[in-house]
């Protein structure tokens, strides 16, 4: 079909989940295609030859790569409903983009070092400090607002919310309480989970922790 939407994705990927949440928020029908990361399909390699990564959105056969770029594409293409970025406020848009970039630079990196490095080692302690600092920075940015964008669930909430399923893993690997570090962020996470698009999409925290343990066993520092 000419306007067919397919999402090449991996079940636990927070980057893929961003796209799923956006598609649900906009009420877009699409085909979900689970990909193997160990044995990448021809379709994935053809669609994303540069990075060979998920998520990839295929719209009428044309690939769009990189989760933040996919979110803006979805927002601009299906602009009649549930805007993710406020269409009339360039400053609010740039703030959302700045913080999305911050999340991709800092949160995922700290998360990876938390499960990858050996507990007790100096670099693991640094990873824990970096994670706490990142969570506190996001907490400060959220402030007293209901959502990162203000009163309404939007772009930056979609960008960050898949990571809340990883909070339990951060606590297990980092030996700290996320609720103690960032109580407002935890309240925000609970608020977001009340949305169907979020609760249907983000992973079960236990399953995420098990997955992180599998990654640690396979790729972690020995």
């Amino acid at each position, binding site marked *: 079909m000419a306007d067919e939407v397919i999402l090449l994705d991996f079940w636990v990927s927070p980057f893929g989940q961003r796209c799923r949440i956006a598609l649900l928020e906009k009420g877009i029908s699409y085909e979900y295609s689970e990909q193997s990361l160990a044995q990448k399909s021809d379709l994935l390699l053809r669609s994303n030859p*540069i990075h060979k990564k998920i998520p990839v959105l295929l719209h009428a056969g044309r690939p769009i790569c990189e989760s933040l770029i996919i979110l803006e594409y979805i927002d601009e293409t299906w602009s009649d409903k549930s805007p993710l970025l406020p269409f009339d406020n360039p*400053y609010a848009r740039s703030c959302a983009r700045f913080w999305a970039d911050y999340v991709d630079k800092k949160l995922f990196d700290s998360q990876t070092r938390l499960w990858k490095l050996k507990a007790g080692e100096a670099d693991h302690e640094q990873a824990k400090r970096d994670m706490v600092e990142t969570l506190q920075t996001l907490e400060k940015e959220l402030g007293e607002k209901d959502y990162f964008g203000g009163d309404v669930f939007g772009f930056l909430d979609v960008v960050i919310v898949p990571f809340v399923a990883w909070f339990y893993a951060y606590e297990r690997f980092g030996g700290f309480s996320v609720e103690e570090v960032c109580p407002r962020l935890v309240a925000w996470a609970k608020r977001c989970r009340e949305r169907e698009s979020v609760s249907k999409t983000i992973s079960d925290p236990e399953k995420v922790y098990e997955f992180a343990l599998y990654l640690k066993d396979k790729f972690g520092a020995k």
Partner: protein
Amino acid sequence: MASPAVKVIGTFDSPYSHRAEAALRLKGVPYEPILEDLRNKSELLLTHNPIHKKVPVLLHGNDRSIPESLVIVEYVDETFPGPTLLPADPLARATARFWARFIDDKCTKPFWLALWTEGEVQEKFIKETKENLKLLEGQLKGKRFFGGESIGYLDVAASGYAYWLDVLEEVAGVSLVAADEYPDLCRWGKDYVSDDRVKACLPEREKLVAYFMEVKGVFMTTARSMAAK
């Protein structure tokens, strides 16, 4: 009533600062450049970019500060009237954004290391950089600019390779992009830097060469530890 003042906190040598200024000049927006000394960061910079403490930062009026050069370019495009830097079509916009991110996330580090490391390590990064630049060149597809007939978002994002590239090649004594190997990219670079609005915010070549010569030793030392990671 006068429109709110626009200022750019930047450094003369930074291609990222140039992106911010180029976007403003292409839109015909007057601004005040504020030169920052990164070895002695000002209160102004630390107040307006507390997270990354880097340049450029765009200040618009009294209450808007925008860091991150690509975020700045999109803000300028959306805020000020005039021909748009990003195309209208969502797929074309996604493509331009993808290649801008490719430049920042995939090209920059190997490019830097190709310049400042030595021996076999350097050879590896030179190879990677040449492949990356071939891919980028491929996006020109016979057009005058990445944006088509006129300079657009991706041209501004790629501007480091239009002007800084041969300055850095000269200082480092490395050849990465020869005209016969990269005819489209070299032609594009010349066209980009000859635009009057762009020329007005490019640093003077001799000054840039002199500055990079001065800090070359630091670049080589930091490159060694970057390459080891």
